[in-house]
């Protein structure tokens, strides 16, 4: 059924895009975690003005399909780049911008709501008594948050966040709509010469699958690390 030569061509191409895919997914995750935590904190701690804005924006972002966000960000970028650079007086060539960053911006926008909800759920999972315990022993609000609440939140969010990472890694196969190459399309382009698409799809599936397993194992390790104190208590 499969031709080994074509399969290896596609596999090689797919593997060569792993660093780019991981870079895109991890950068996106980092951005989403930072912004998502801020948004989640604003919502959990009922910060006036900011909370309703976050509620509204996240609900808006949640509703948009990822490839639509990619196209919109691409169009906004290409339309506004030259006017903005001219306004700033910077002489810049649009071709020198790596489109990977445009893809990261788009993926961040579409994944922000999901990641923020995961973190919000994590924050809510820590009981009120934990805050009170912190304040009783004389810790400040900041100390209570960073030393007591945050570690427990991290432990709670790792399993759902692993899901977010996995869907991000898979979502990178959509960035080809704005012309950024990835594992999936690298494999397909390698197959164009001989029209060997079955081999290409199997190669891409294999790469995604191995990546998924690695991410799963890594997340277990991190989860165990953050669960140390819990086990000692039990």
């Amino acid at each position: 059924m499969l031709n080994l030569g074509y399969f290896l061509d596609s596999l090689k191409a797919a593997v060569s895009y792993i660093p780019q895919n991981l870079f895109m997914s991890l950068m996106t995750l980092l951005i989403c975690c930072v912004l998502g935590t801020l948004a989640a904190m604003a919502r959990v701690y009922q910060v006036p003005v900011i909370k309703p804005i976050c509620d509204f924006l996240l609900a808006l972002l949640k509703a948009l399909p990822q490839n639509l966000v990619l196209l919109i960000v691409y169009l906004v970028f290409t339309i506004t780049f030259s006017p903005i650079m001219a306004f700033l007086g910077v002489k810049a060539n649009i071709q020198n911008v790596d489109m990977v960053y445009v893809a990261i911006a788009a993926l961040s926008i579409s994944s922000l709501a999901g990641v923020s909800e995961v973190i919000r759920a994590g924050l809510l999972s820590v009981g009120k008594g934990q805050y009170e315990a912190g304040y009783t022993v004389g810790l400040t609000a900041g100390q209570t948050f960073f030393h007591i609440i945050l570690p427990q939140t991290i432990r709670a969010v790792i399993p759902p966040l692993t899901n977010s990472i996995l869907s991000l890694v898979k979502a990178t196969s959509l960035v080809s709509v704005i012309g950024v190459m990835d594992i999936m399309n690298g494999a397909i382009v390698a197959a164009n010469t001989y029209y060997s698409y079955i081999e290409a799809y199997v190669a891409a599936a294999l790469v995604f699958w191995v990546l998924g397993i690695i991410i799963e194992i890594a997340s277990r390790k991190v989860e165990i690390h953050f669960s140390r104190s819990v086990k000692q208590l039990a």
Partner: protein
Amino acid sequence: MKNKFQFRKAGSLALVLTMILTLLASCGSKNTNSSAESKSSSSQSSEASATKVAAGEKTKLKVGIGNMFTPFCYLDDDDQPTGYDYDVMMAISEKLGDKYEFVVTPDDFSNLLIGLDTGKYDVAVHHFGYTAERAENYLYAKEADMYFGNFRIGFSKDRTDITDLASAAGKTIATTSGSMSESLLLKWNEENPDQAVKLQYIKDNTVVYQGITSGLYDAFVGSQYDLDTLSEQYDGFMKYSDYNVTTSDYDCGAYFVYSKGSDAMQQDIDAALVELREDGTLKALSETWLGADYTENPNA
């Protein structure tokens, strides 16, 4: 707990290794068996069709046709296949109606080819361009149902620096994955490594339009027909030079593609295509759908 986890880890690792080995084993076996298999299956199918015709029954001819390649093969507002290639196939089905029962299924570009591999389709219709490499794996029709015409290099109407591929050396040229323009560009890069162009894969006309007008991409290579249609769609934003990207040894026909061994079907359909060309049906369809006659080989 720790033992359990390690056990699970070892288990998943073993699973991965088994899957990879199985895959590779099945890959390896193709090289030796495939030609024999396809030969035997073809003789079987021709025998089968012979007996069916003798019994007065029609052979089923499974046609896979593209679903988003306007105006050649795409879906209309009611999700029904339509387009130039579809109408040509319908005209062929009228000619061959006594012998074959045509079953037409719309599908995605690469799925059409996979469908040929798996036997889901007997013939794939997606304006396939011919290269010797592709003909190693699939049986190409001998008759083209359309000729792409010459390929041109298109660029923003404000630019004067690009005239041919040599002048576009080092520049970014947009193309679509799996297209004739892609293989022409790859061939150029292979033969002119000093004047190589950068290939940029795109999927969407809006992205090409916006990429070319913003300067993100320098040029777009396509058939004259593609460039005219694209430029018209966005107020004539693009123009092209007289430079012919298609080299003289290149085949500029658009072909139906069959699985290896479907020679009988291919010959029947080719014969019907010749008739349609001679009686003017192809020309009329081309003028209706494409606005001009693209059914004669411009390089013949």
